[in-house]
């Protein structure tokens, strides 16, 4: 034992004393919301729902989001256009590039900039790399959530190859900080096309294997098939976005309907599925990864030469612009108002998850408590979100917050007692 251990913070008193803490860890209590489930290192915004019940049937569900609300939209109004790129990028670590892409393109719209063609192609490449990484992340997390750790480890292992590329191109694995008004900050590194081709071949190979695995491994399929079903009619009414929408058979994709960057020249094939359940989302996302690989290779092949950015002015003229891009999880919407100057007057951001929450909540109505977690699971981005639900019983004035799983348990016991 070296002496080093002594001055490390881990040395502490021998913990022999017994301590009584004020309350059990997860006691039933109205204020105990625990917005981070036990281990959700990879969740997005924690949310929670209040359910209004009549007996067993849910008559209303009220979501409560905003656990990660930081006040970014307000802060953006006091910062310069350039600083805001870095700020918006950090709304989320998963579709960081999509955020900055949407934002700078909205500004470029007001400035009426013609972005150099090479920059537009590079943007497509990075955006698609990000989609691959995000979809693989989600696929891995499905494994994690269903207790299939091996799947999680494998997919995340292969995801590192994409992150390698992203790091080589942009300089950071997560927050790319690569977009700037009028283009991208740096050209692609030299000799990158060889590694990209190699990695894409590898990813395609692996994803084909995983697609086969997730659609055939029975323990996984029984947990996902028929879960969280939505139909096209509901989807049309509630306007969810991204794969959640496409899994119902509606082929809406910003990249094809309203092409941005270079998607007018690199046209994606929109994948859909008609099942609308989690199982079909698994294969749908795998398909989208394969499609993204194809797009990247295509963009690489057609890549023009030239500059990658222009000199952009520091202030933006008066004007407003709405812009959206297809982030990995769906349409990401930005609305910008410029008062004419170096700071924006208002930037409105609508993240894809925000659009999908509603679908999940509204689908709860009419279901019984036992169905809740199942329904919320289907809401897509992640299994993580079906976490916190607070239950109102209209007559008893009782309210507590439970996790989705408790509810299912409750439901099961309910059915059991009914039968007996």
């Amino acid at each position, binding site marked *: 034992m070296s002496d080093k251990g002594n001055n490390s913070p881990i040395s502490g008193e021998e913990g022999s004393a017994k301590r009584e803490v004020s309350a059990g860890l997860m006691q039933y209590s109205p204020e105990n919301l625990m917005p981070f489930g036990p281990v959700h290192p990879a969740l997005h915004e924690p949310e929670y729902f209040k359910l209004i019940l009549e007996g067993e049937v849910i008559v209303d569900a009220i979501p409560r989001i905003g656990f990660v609300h930081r006040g970014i939209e307000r802060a953006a109004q006091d910062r310069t256009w350039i*600083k805001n790129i870095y700020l918006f990028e950090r709304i989320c670590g998963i579709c960081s590039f999509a955020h900055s892409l949407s934002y700078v393109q909205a500004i470029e719209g007001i400035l009426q900039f013609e972005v150099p063609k090479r920059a537009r192609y590079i943007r497509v490449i990075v955006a698609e790399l990000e989609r691959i990484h995000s979809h693989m992340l989600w696929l891995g997390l499905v494994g994690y959530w269903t207790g299939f750790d091996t799947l999680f480890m494998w997919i995340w292992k292969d995801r590192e190859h994409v992150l390698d590329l992203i790091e080589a191109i942009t300089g*950071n694995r997560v927050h790319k900080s690569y977009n700037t008004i009028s283009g991208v900050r740096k050209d692609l590194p030299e000799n990158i096309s060889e590694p990209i081709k190699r990695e894409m071949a590898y990813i395609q190979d692996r994803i084909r294997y995983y697609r086969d695995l997730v*659609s055939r491994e029975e323990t996984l399929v029984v947990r996902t098939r028929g879960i969280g079903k939505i139909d096209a009619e509901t989807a049309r009414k509630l306007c969810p976005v991204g794969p959640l929408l496409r899994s119902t058979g509606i082929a809406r994709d910003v990249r094809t309907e309203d092409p941005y960057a270079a998607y007018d020249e690199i046209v994606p094939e929109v994948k859909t599925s008609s099942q609308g359940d989690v199982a079909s989302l698994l294969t749908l996302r795998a398909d989208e990864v394969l499609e993204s690989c194809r797009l990247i290779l295509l963009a690489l092949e057609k890549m023009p030469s030239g500059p990658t950015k222009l000199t952009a002015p520091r202030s933006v003229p008066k004007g407003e612009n709405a812009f959206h891009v297809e982030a990995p999880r769906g349409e990401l919407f930005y609305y910008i108002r410029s008062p004419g100057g170096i700071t924006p007057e208002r930037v409105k951001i609508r993240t894809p998850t925000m659009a999908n929450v509603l679908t999940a909540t509204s689908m709860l109505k009419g279901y019984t408590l036992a169905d809740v977690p199942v329904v919320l699971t289907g809401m897509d981005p992640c299994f993580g979100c079906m976490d916190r639900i607070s239950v109102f019983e209209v007559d008893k004035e009782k309210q507590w917050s439970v996790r989705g799983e408790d509810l299912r348990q409750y439901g099961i016991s309910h059915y059991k007692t009914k039968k007996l």
Partner: protein
Amino acid sequence: MVENDASEDSKKGMKVGGALGEMFRTAFQRPITKKYPFGAAQVAERFRGKLDIDPVKCTGCGVCEAVCPASVIQMVHTGTRKVGTREIETKRPTFDLYTCISCGQCVDDCRFEALRLTHEFELATVDKKSLVMDKALKVVN
């Protein structure tokens, strides 16, 4: 528009333990784990690590303070300097590197090339204050 064919998937038939083959294959391959804490770490050429300043090149113009999105940089008064007959206040930047997001905007905008992003990432520390970089202050006299 391509339909992701679910019926085709179900035709293939289910099996329990579909991952077993791949599992054994993986088990007998070398683990892909990198050596890092016990061997060299590889980072990409462009990797944006810790910010570094060359105190000699810095002129104290203050551009970096103005462009930093994370309010990392404060200009500190370091004294005065005679230019001809006038006394000019000199300033130098200090960096609270613990909030630095390594975006590189200051590096891009410093016209005197005093700043650069290194490849260093082993920055964990028990003392947050040790991440304040005030090298530039010390060189000025």
